[in-house]
């Protein structure tokens, strides 16, 4: 529990290696990297770059799911923060733009957290409200248009580089380390897991479950807002209709692939991000292989089902029986 990368990540790492190998077969130059203008280019970097929004979302989502919750509104929050960033970018300084966009994410997270922790609503229902209304709010901000901007400061988030890595990737890495340090460097992670494991027992044991739940939704909102800013910077504009559309599902999928149970409890930040990378590696592989991108959804569906069946309490019980039978035979 102390290390960021637990031993149980083996299946995910193997899956990633297998998919990477398949990608290599499909596209022989998959692992080629070249340095140009102080920034690395290549399919691998592409995977990291495109995987960033989902990786950021999954960082927040994994904490929410660990408390036995779910946040359906992250895609809408991305649209809101992207819309705010894009409409302020050309008239305000970068600090103001970022503060406004991330502040919006914080408020969205507070709203979700308030509904779940204080009013005691079911997380699916509580976050459904913002999922439905959020995209409307984003369109209100952009007045229904696709807002474009040219502010070099903000564009840097989309195409700049730090130490050869794209800025967005560096940010995601930084967020992973920051979240990991805060959550695992203190008892916070354990308290979150306790809340998800059994909220009532934790409450009786003195864990401030309400504060925990509120905090994870706020963090999830901030992560989503950051993903929204990066997505907007990437296309130098904000499209309230399509920014972050269906990404909440990808984020949930990433967390589930990362082995965190939807029933709350134990979670792993690194594995959730790894899950996001697995999804993106599959997407890129399908694109490179020349199959129509429509295959993505089918492949995703199969992966969800496979992971679910592996996690299923019934099936793991079955596996236990099998191993026990084998042992008795031996």
């Amino acid at each position, binding site marked *: 529990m102390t290390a960021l990368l637990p031993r149980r990540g083996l299946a995910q790492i193997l899956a990633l290696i297998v998919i990477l190998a398949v990608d290599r077969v499909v596209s022989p130059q998959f692992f080629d990297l070249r340095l140009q203008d102080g920034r690395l280019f290549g399919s691998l970097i592409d995977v990291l770059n495109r995987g960033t929004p989902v990786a950021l979302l999954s960082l927040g989502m994994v904490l929410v799911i660990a408390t036995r919750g779910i946040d359906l509104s992250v895609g809408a929050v991305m649209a809101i923060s992207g819309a705010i960033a894009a409409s302020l970018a050309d008239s305000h300084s970068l600090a103001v733009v970022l503060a406004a966009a991330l502040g919006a994410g914080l408020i969205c997270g507070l709203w979700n957290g308030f509904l779940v922790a204080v009013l005691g609503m079911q997380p699916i229902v509580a976050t459904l409200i913002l999922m439905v209304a959020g995209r409307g709010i984003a369109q209100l901000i952009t007045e*229904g248009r696709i807002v474009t901007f040219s502010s070099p400061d903000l564009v840097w988030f989309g195409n700049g580089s730090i130490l050869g890595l794209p800025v967005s990737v560096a940010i995601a890495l930084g967020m992973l380390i920051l979240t990991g340090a805060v959550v695992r460097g203190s008892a916070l992670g354990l308290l979150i897991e306790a809340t998800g494991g059994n909220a009532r027992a934790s409450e009786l044991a003195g864990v401030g479950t309400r504060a925990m739940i509120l905090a994870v939704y706020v963090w999830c909102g901030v992560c989503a807002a950051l993903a929204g800013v990066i997505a907007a910077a990437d296309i130098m504009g904000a499209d309230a209709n399509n920014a972050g559309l269906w990404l909440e599902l990808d984020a949930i999928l990433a967390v589930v692939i990362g082995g965190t149970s939807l029933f709350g409890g134990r979670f792993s930040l690194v594995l959730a991000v790894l899950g996001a990378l697995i999804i993106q590696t599959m997407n890129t592989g399908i694109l490179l292989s020349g199959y129509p991108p429509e295959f993505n959804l089918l492949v995703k569906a199969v992966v969800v089902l496979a992971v679910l069946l592996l996690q299923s309490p019934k099936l793991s019980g079955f596996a236990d029986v099998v191993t026990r039978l084998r042992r008795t035979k031996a």
Partner: protein
Amino acid sequence: MKGLPPVLITAIVLVAGFALCAMQFPNIASTRVVGNLLTDNAFLGIVATGMTFVIISGGIDLSVGSVIGFTTVFVALAIERWGMPPLVAFVAILALSAAFGAAMGAVIHVFDLPPFIVTLAGMFLARGASFLLSTESVPITAPVYSTVSDFALRLPGGGRLTAVAIIMLAIVIGGALLLQLTRFGANVYALGGSRATASLMGVAVGRMTVKIYMLSSLLAGIAGIVFSFYTSAGYSLSAVGVELDTIAAVVIGGTLLTGGQGSVIGTFLGVLIQGMIQTYINFDGTLSSWWTKIATGVLLFAFIALQQGLVALARRPVAKRAGAVS
């Protein structure tokens, strides 16, 4: 709890909202507008009827929008490219969607998985399959389609009650009767109240789960056919996000999202409220369509908060007694 049932509140909101709209735009209160409202929301009403069963039983079905999309593409291709007679195509797609729902229900029950994530996989699967069939919009030119589109009962005042609206009304009434008057309906409520209790009372939980999701997907299939009548085309991206509108309609209609309580009539009123907001925005002309989403979100919040309050009120005496004992 019995003071003011949620359905009544939904009805009051609908009537009051309609009165407000009619005060501002007197033309709204005409059979023509109401007829169009029923036609435009026919597919939503049908699919929401199925969703009501699922949600009352304590589940959720996120795949309905994708099933509608798949149905429109399948029907269009079957009639236009594969030369199937329309009726055969309808039967085929309804059998297919019913089997799809049954499969989801079976996975949910057998592997004891959350319905949310299983139907999410179903949503990906159905949408992906419709993309595979065709990514382009396929127009349907079969004569049945123009016959059905042209058919309408004349209402006094120039309104038209179209065939799709009639289908929707029939399904809503049928669904309400099924839920209120049959053993199947009683079992749905029992499942939503508590699966363990229902099982102890002798409800075949597994079979019921399969049947409920089968019903939902079957109605989504019918909604897909109705949608294809409405647009005379099959398109793999049609009805994206309809699952959200559907869930919103069910909740606004007073169904408890935790299951155990609700009604098809309430859902129907919820669909009408959403349609009314859309109509108002169309009439106003200056408001943009995104206000629909915001208004729906606000209504959702209001109704969920109301339910939360009602549930808290209902539980209060029990909680006190438990506190006194310990």
